[in-house]
């Protein structure tokens, strides 16, 4: 496996090998699927739309609807106005969503299609809405696409009536539906009325009923998005994913925000709980405190199997920061921590974490790829690998226990239904980490060393 990868690290400035990121539009599509009765629309050639729907369906094992402007060479020369007009008419005719959320592609960005004016000139059916955002694939990563789409919705739809609605807004960042359900559960337990935006739960984890609908009814509703301007406080999770949308809400409607890391592990979940508490001014309920106590108990019980183990963690910036924090809580040394997304803030935040736990000798890099991660591992191995499906190649090549987390996970089931966030998510991750490390110990043990009790 990956036999052409050698330990000889060479600095590269042009060739990306085995990327740890993808392009903006898929993030926009995922964000738009978290809005109720919304058709994501890809303004470009139809391959983009096909690839994005495919990767989303492969990750969630669910249908991912989205339409395309189906650019041809002619449209690429003359502009895509007529394509988007035709598309919008057909989407409303055939699929009848309430809203179409258009994102651009490198094609429509390069030719400079002006979606704002195209949309302004559209003759839309009564009660239907079209919004857009710009997602040039050659800037940032899919994470940028996700928050750009959020801001697209907010730019078009949010309002301020002047009457605060008594709710908190929660931006979950790029997480799975199982995570969103957990974030909601915690907010409800904390007595916080909220608007979750976006919200893919109920959409990309929909149940089997024998009846298929294009739109499941799940997702943040349009009135909810409109009401974001009336919320009293925003809790934005995932500093890198939710930072810019949080700034926008503050700038546009003066909604104050608390920007927190993705609540993975104890400390970051504590921060989420306390932010909710600050809003509700209520005691943390027994149910939540009990679960936190169980998690701490689990950490103490299992620490001999995790302490001092070296791990490599890769993926999207916010989930990687969260997982790094969780690993440090477990006493694991995060030897290599990388993201493909080009954000220096990532490096700063991870280094701050390492400093907090007084851990040295780790390599942290943004705008990195899996080829260089693999090369580092060849030079100095790790005992655990955590990240998306593509890590399985490295795990197989180097015989490293591997845990899947983040996006995309294309080769396992049930993941999107389950949380990584919150105390519940941490318990689940600790179980996964311990299982992986302890299964390895069992596998490698001499017969006389195989422990029945561990």
């Amino acid at each position: 496996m990956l036999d052409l990868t050698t330990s000889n690290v060479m600095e590269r400035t042009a060739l990306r090998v085995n990327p740890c990121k993808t392009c903006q539009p898929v993030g926009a599509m995922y964000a738009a699927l978290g809005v109720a009765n919304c058709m994501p629309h890809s303004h470009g050639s139809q391959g983009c739309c096909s690839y994005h729907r495919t990767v989303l369906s492969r990750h969630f094992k669910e249908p991912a609807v989205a339409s395309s402007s189906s650019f041809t060479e002619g449209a690429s020369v003359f502009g895509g106005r007529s394509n988007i007009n035709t598309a919008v008419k057909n989407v409303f005719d055939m699929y009848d969503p309430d809203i179409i959320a258009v994102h651009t592609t490198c094609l429509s960005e390069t030719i400079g299609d002006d979606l704002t004016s195209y949309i302004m000139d559209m003759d839309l059916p009564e009660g239907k809405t079209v919004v857009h955002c710009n997602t040039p694939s050659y800037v940032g990563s899919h994470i940028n696409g996700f928050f750009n789409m959020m801001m697209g919705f907010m730019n078009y739809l949010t309002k301020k009536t002047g009457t605060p609605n008594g709710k908190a807004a929660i931006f979950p960042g790029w997480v799975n539906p199982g995570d969103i359900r957990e974030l909601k559960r915690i907010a409800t337990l904390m007595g916080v009325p909220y608007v979750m935006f976006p919200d893919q739960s109920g959409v990309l984890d929909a149940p089997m009923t024998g009846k298929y609908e294009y739109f499941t009814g799940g997702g943040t509703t349009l009135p909810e998005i409109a009401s974001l301007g009336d919320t009293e406080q925003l809790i934005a999770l995932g500093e890198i994913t939710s930072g810019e949308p949080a700034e926008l809400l503050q700038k546009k409607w003066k909604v104050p925000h608390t920007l927190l890391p993705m609540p993975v592990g104890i400390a970051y979940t504590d921060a989420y709980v306390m932010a909710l508490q600050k809003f509700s001014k209520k005691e943390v309920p027994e149910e939540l405190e009990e679960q936190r106590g169980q998690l701490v108990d689990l950490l103490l019980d299992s620490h001999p199997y995790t302490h001092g183990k070296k791990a490599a963690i890769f993926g999207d910036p916010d989930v990687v920061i969260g997982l790094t924090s969780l690993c440090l809580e477990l006493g694991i040394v995060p030897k290599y921590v990388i993201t493909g997304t080009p954000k220096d803030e990532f490096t700063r935040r991870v280094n701050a974490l390492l400093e907090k736990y007084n851990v040295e000798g780790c390599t942290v890099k943004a705008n990195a790829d899996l080829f260089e991660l693999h090369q580092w591992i060849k030079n100095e191995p790790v005992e655990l690998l955590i990240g998306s499906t593509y890590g399985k190649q490295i795990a197989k090549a180097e015989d490293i226990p591997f845990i899947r987390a983040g996006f995309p996970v294309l080769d396992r089931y049930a993941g999107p239904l389950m949380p990584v966030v919150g105390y519940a998510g941490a318990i689940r991750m600790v179980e996964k980490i311990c299982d992986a490390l302890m299964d390895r110990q069992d596998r490698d043990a001499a017969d006389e060393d195989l422990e029945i009790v561990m």
Partner: protein
Amino acid sequence: MNEKNKLIDKYSAKVYKNRKDHILQLEDLDEAQSIAANTRAIPGVMTARGCCYAGAKGVVVGPLKDVCVITHGPVGCGFYSWGTRRNKARADEDSGGKNFVPYCFSTDMQEPDIVFGGEKKLEKAIEEAVALFSPACIMICSTCPIGLIGDDVQAVARRTEEKYGIKAIGYSCEGYKGVSQSAGHHIANNGLMRYVIGTGDKAPAKKFSVNVLGEYNIGGDGWEQERILKRCGIEVVSMFTGDGSYGALKNAHLAGLNLVMCHRSINYIAEMMKTKYGIDWLKVNFIGVGATCKSLRDIAKYFNDAELTRRVEEVITDELSLIYDDIEYYKSRLTGKTAGIFSGGSRSHHYQVLLRDFGIETIIAGYEFAHRDDYEGREIIPFIKEDADNKNIETITVERDLALYRERYSEAELEALGAELDVDSYDGMIPEMNPGNIVVDDYNHFETDELIRTMKPDIFFSGIKDKYSIQKAGVTSRQMHSYDYSGPYAGFRGAVNFGRDVTMALYTNAWSFVSPPWKNEPMLVGTIGG
């Protein structure tokens, strides 16, 4: 009103006008059935189609294991086509011990590269690739912005060849070209024909040798075909392009015969090799037990050798005896079921034959990116009208290579052979189907769902984008592009795998739980009192 009319009646006037010619409900099969194909998808209908890049990089050149295929563009296109198609490959002698298939290479273009041009970055990327991997061949696949900003990937390829003394080919396969993946197939075919085929000199060792064209080794299909062909004493010179290599493709012109599996994606090469090198081609189908037997017998007929014919019959008898019990069992579970297939290349045709082996009738079939000849047969080609979108895709003309051309059979001999064998021809999918059946070109999500409702197939074979919506509607759904990560489905052993998987999908216990028991029980239990 028949199912076709029920479907298109739901369309607005403009969409109706377009789609009515892409959908057929077969009537009297003695009359020629004509279908519109290979035209633009309508924006917004949720077509299943991909793009030109997907056809060139994803389908045709991506599987070449000794080629460092660099996607020139932003990172997404390379990322999505990384390891997701199941074109299995093992390093071998022809590939110089290399296998690039598990890797993804991209120039990951950034905004300044778009503004100031990306050629420099591409050349730097090639320099880095050569330093790291010393590939024998580099192929550059362009994505949408490349054509728009005017990077000359062919010039970069030429400079690469001069600088490093390796083979380099640039493909202008930007996503917006043509109307579907099909344009990319054609562009990739042209490049392989121009720069690769005919440049090697390793002659086949065996008397009977073939290339398998349009076989991408999804789930190991190509390996099963190779196993059977080898048993028959036939050498596979090269596979286009599953488990294929630049090293092997170079020698393809020295094979005795071309076998064409996926007609759409590779027929250009088959035709051009006939003209340039005199190699005939046979449209084969190794999907299906009967189909595999027929294909083997056709090959034997073509080579017209008593010993080969005897060997082929021996292999067929032996292979059939090995799978007979399994096939009979699955057939007993599957007979009488009906199916729908929406797929690419030639699969919607091929799998109808395999399904019939198990007693399943295909009542809906369609292609994403086929041309009229894939539906109606190659006789239609002279009558296909070109439009602006097709004209943008280069058609290259080749001439007889005086040094390498070798006539396998004279015209007269071919004609005689033609009495019992279709050489250099293909009749298309429609003759395989029955009256009442529906044929759909460039199917979309809406049509898929509607047809499932009205035609009620027991099982539907499609791709990942449709799989879960079909399943959620309560219809068994299997992926025909990836085989749901199973396979091989080709050849004798593959047929058994397919029967097993289809039976499993239809009968899996989970179906019995879809409706909760309380939905069928009265909620309140009481007594009627007086």
